[in-house]
């Protein structure tokens, strides 16, 4: 049994077609279970596996699924794959979708069967042209082989899977905004409750899962919950796609046991820092996670430990800040992104983020004043807590700012004091 189930078919030799996928044991779980297994048993299996959502929040998948009410026969039930990978610094789902699209399809099929969903959508960002093409061709292969469509594999179960290409908006990655977008509306997040499980797509029960999460399902079904739990380090279940970008020698994305140490990821897999660059800090899992520093290198990459250290594991793809890049500039870049991608619905996000961005730009340009840091801190407090805003976008935006002010405060002060960015001219 493989120790890297998600990437077992990804060897850099092009996409896996359906024959190759089947040859590697693909669709075995589907053939064994669709129309045969009791969905309740499958749900219990996923609960037992301790699979946590791989999109960033780390919510237990089985528990999420268990909130879907029993089928009432009054209309569709939906399963949506969140393939709107737009978190800056994140490039994991693209890897799977481009290279092993059937893995996602089988994951969705088994999940949909478990949830009694009859319609599925893959919500994918428009810039992923290659992934879109490969998924589409995989869907038609799967349809031809009766893994998708009516009466799958001769059973009474039907599941129709479609690709929806986004019109471009980071907020679509938020699951309720994604649902509004799928409905053809402005992608404004919805207030929860009601949760999508109860009133999701077109007001019907809906589950939205990240691509990587769904790809774990066939392997859990094939090999069992205990096997899955054994893959991770410590109490952690399964493997995870980790990665690093920035000034490391070997930027990339690797499937590693959940709980692998940051040091191992950065020093072994990413090959350490490029020559002439030192590690100053890093965002552990995308733009909306708090900075960590070299002091945190020995933490295991898993949700709880990273949370305890004051950050979030997020998508698990690290963005590395080196000693020759300006932390103020980096945070300004991040906040520009968040301000631009605000949907404009709630006040703290819509108005608050551009103000924060403006102040950071001003400090970076050497026009900052001491009082600006107070405003930044007050705004961070105002915007930064979940519940203060309509969705998690703006609180996420405050994570690198708050942690940046904590770890790199002297740099901010130096900008203000010197009236210039000390890194100007560096590259």
């Amino acid at each position, binding site marked *: 049994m493989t120790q890297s189930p998600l990437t077992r078919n990804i060897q850099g030799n092009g996409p896996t077609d359906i024959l190759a996928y089947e040859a590697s044991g693909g669709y075995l779980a589907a053939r064994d279970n669709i129309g045969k297994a009791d969905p309740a048993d499958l749900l219990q299996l996923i609960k037992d596996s301790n699979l946590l959502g791989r999109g960033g929040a780390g919510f237990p998948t089985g528990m999420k699924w268990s909130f879907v009410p029993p089928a009432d026969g009054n209309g569709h039930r939906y399963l949506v794959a969140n393939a709107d990978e*737009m978190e*800056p*610094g994140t*490039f994991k789902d693209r890897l799977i979708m481009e290279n092993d699209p059937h893995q996602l399809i089988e994951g969705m099929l088994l999940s949909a069967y478990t949830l009694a969903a009859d319609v599925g959508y893959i919500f994918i960002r428009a*810039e992923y042209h290659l992934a879109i093409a490969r998924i589409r061709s995989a869907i038609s292969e799967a349809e031809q082989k009766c893994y998708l469509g009516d009466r799958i594999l001769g059973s009474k179960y039907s599941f129709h899977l479609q690709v929806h290409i986004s*019109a471009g908006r980071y907020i679509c990655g938020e699951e309720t905004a994604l649902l509004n*977008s799928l409905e053809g509306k402005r992608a404004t997040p919805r207030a929860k409750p009601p949760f999508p499980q109860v009133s999701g797509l*077109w007001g019907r029960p809906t589950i939205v899962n990240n691509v990587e999460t769904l790809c774990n399902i066939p392997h859990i079904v094939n090999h069992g919950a205990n096997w899955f739990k054994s893959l991770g380090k410590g109490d952690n279940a399964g493997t995870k796609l980790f990665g*690093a970008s920035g000034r490391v020698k070997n930027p990339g994305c690797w499937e590693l046991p959940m709980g692998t140490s940051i040091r191992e990821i950065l020093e072994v897999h990413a090959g350490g820092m490029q020559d002439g660059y030192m590690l100053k800090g890093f965002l552990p899992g995308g733009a909306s996670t708090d900075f960590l520093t070299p002091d945190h290198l020995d933490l295991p990459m898993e949700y709880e430990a990273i949370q305890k250290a004051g950050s979030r594991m997020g998508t698990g793809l690290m963005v*590395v800040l080196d000693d020759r890049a300006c932390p103020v500039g980096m945070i300004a870049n991040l906040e520009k992104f968040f301000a631009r991608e605000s949907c404009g619905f709630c006040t703290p996000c819509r108005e608050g983020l551009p103000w924060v961005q403006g102040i950071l730009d001003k400090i970076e340009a050497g026009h900052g004043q001491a009082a600006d840091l107070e405003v930044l801190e007050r705004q961070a407090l105002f915007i930064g807590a979940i519940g203060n805003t309509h969705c998690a976008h703006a609180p996420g935006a405050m994570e690198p700012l708050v942690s940046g002010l904590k770890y790199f405060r002297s740099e901010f002060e130096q900008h203000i004091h010197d009236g210039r960015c000390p890194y100007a001219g560096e590259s």
Partner: protein
Amino acid sequence: MKSELINALSRAEIDAIEAEITHLPDRKSAAIDALKIVQSQRGWISDDSLSAIAKLLNMSAAELDGIATFYNLIFRHPVGEQVILFCDSVSCWLMNGEKVCSKLQRTLGIQHGETTADGQYTLLPVTCLGDCDHAPAMMVGESLHHDLTVDNIEAIFK
């Protein structure tokens, strides 16, 4: 009514939109798909296209434009033959993306949001293209270019 629509939308466009609608519970839900279908043919969504699509979807132009103007990749102004989406997110920024982009801007003589005089390229910033291990990255039309440097960017447009 139909003949009027065909003047503004091609038969193929209408067919493609109608095909999307068959998967959806109502016509309005096809709004984004329809905008993308027409944009893929015409490069952008003109006011006339907007009205024609709105009619086809049984919604008002205002309702459709509220959606169209929300999304980054629906163009309500004319764009060049190819749209350059230059990543300005954090990983590319860390890898000197800003300077590479400035170089590109000088090379093409346009700023963000502008189109070259020959109508060839429109330059827009884009959120992370998911190619961070090869930052900086950009997309020209549908092709991804990465590991960009101040030195190699020019050649792509030669």
